[in-house]
């Protein structure tokens, strides 16, 4: 009913819908559709051999493992940052708040070279770590460091508004009923934050799995050891192995869609919990 009424009053639905669908198809859908279409031209055995090649499997393991580790670190420290920004007042709070989005605003190639320079054995941070026998640049640890940088805003920006919207009356009520601060934290605050926290983790993880620019410099790109899956796609393309590149890309695309579905599910769960 409302739809009909609106359509009669407001003009331009047909025109704007046409532009939307046409542009979306030309720019996004048709290009993306070439990926599965191209894979269809491979034989099943060829496809399977490409995506189960030990070097490729090692790259999934690194991409997923480092992304998981980085998202876990961000889940802990990002939660503290979000808490501090939402609840505490301190000088420079607005600047820190603005700075959280730096990983979105700074081109990934710049992040890549600066992190590599910092964590190289001669760098500001690499040199002191070297004394303790910890190598970061050109190791899987370096990959994780770059992915921590990339993923931080996802956790902070997902949690921050939820912390701001937490009803203080709940905490007041619990406190007046005799709960300790730790009790309030574990019984009231954390359960309320949990869905958003998990969403932030998943978003950081999803972004990290596909990340390329910030990682390729610091990883050193040694086959079987520090080679991420997106880099293997580039390597195969440079060797004109279109089929190989496409097969790996399709595996990654499937991973992203699974993650996307999981995140969608998490968010509707979170909304159901928040909404009365």
């Amino acid at each position, binding site marked *: 009913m409302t739809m009909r009424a609106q359509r009669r009053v407001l003009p*331009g639905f047909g025109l704007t819908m046409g532009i939307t669908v046409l542009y979306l198809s030309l720019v996004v859908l048709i290009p993306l559709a070439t990926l599965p279409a191209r894979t269809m031209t491979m034989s099943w055995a060829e496809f399977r051999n490409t995506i189960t090649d030990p070097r490729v499997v090692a790259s999934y393991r690194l991409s997923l493992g480092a992304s998981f580790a980085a998202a876990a670190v961000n889940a802990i420290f990002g939660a503290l940052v979000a808490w501090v920004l939402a609840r505490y007042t301190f000088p420079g709070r607005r600047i820190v708040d603005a700075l959280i989005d730096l990983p979105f605003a700074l081109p990934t190639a710049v992040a890549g070279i600066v992190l590599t*320079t910092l964590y190289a054995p001669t760098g500001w941070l690499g040199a002191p770590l070297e004394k303790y026998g910890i190598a970061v640049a050109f190791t899987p640890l370096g990959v994780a460091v770059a992915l921590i940088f990339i993923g931080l805003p996802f956790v902070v920006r997902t949690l921050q508004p939820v912390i701001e919207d937490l009803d203080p009356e709940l905490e007041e009520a619990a406190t007046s009923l005799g709960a300790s601060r730790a009790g309030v934290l574990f019984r009231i605050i954390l359960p309320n934050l949990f869905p958003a926290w998990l969403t932030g983790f998943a978003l950081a993880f999803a972004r990290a799995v596909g990340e*390329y620019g910030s990682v390729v410099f610091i990883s050193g790109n040694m086959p079987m050891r520090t080679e991420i899956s997106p880099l293997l796609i580039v390597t195969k393309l440079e060797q004109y192995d279109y089929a190989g590149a496409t097969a790996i890309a399709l595996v990654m695309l499937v991973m992203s869609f699974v993650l996307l579905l999981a995140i969608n599910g998490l968010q509707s769960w979170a909304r159901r919990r928040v909404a009365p």
Partner: protein
Amino acid sequence: MTTLPRTARLTEPRPVRWAILAIALGFVALFLVVPLAAVFAQAFAKGFEAYRAAIVEPDAVAALKLTLLAAAVAVPLNVIFGLAAGWALGKFQFRGRHFLLTLIDLPFAVSPVISGLVFVLLFGRRGWLGPWIIDHGFQIVFAVPGIILATIFVSFPFVAREVIPIMEAIGTEEEEAARVLGAGGFQLFFRVTLPNIKWGLLYGVILANARAMGEFGAVSVVSGHIRGLTNTLPLHVEILYNEYNAQAAFAVASLLGCLAIVTLILKTVVESRVQRSARPAVHTAVEAMSWESKSAV
């Protein structure tokens, strides 16, 4: 944001508060402040003269021009799309609307490398349309058009992502009133709708522009890295760095660092305006992947 008077028992004990603050700020310093500072420190490591030389060098200037060109094509096209999508999806309810919203978010979910790869598969020498295009004397991949296409792809959702929820939150009453008073379609849009969404639109443009100018992975795949011809600023940074010319790489990178700082400042200023003009509702998961989550309820 609510700042409420709190009794001592309603917050953490003072030492705990200090500890949390110290850990959080230490983490931010280590992962955000130090890298940003290091970009500029490295850029000026060999003095101002070396810095200037790296920036005015012809290949760097060519890269800057190409970066500006790609953004100058990609951002306006994505603005037109964003406004059209905002009108169709923000002002009307129809079947499949939610699905369409998810499709618009797709470029956020795809690895940048894959975003470049699909254009090579379409227009490359061994791609589907590639041989036909090359026979007719055009080149898309490893040339400027490919870079522009990849830039459009990666910055595609930002404007639409901002404009749709704001148009939805504002509703249709004002436009309906204007319509009843006899306003035509375009008059309606420019006199009624645009003033209402201008901050949200600007916010989307800032984000799209930052992504368009800074994109590396997708552009790297389609560029072919021809110096002075198909290098954008981020690609030029990579080439210089791989040639062990770190100082020049950081000098060029510092331009992108400035872009990031300007983006963050503009974003902070515009964000407060957006929140004052409308509080958009969340509709899909990937919304948080654009930088929207903060203003989402």
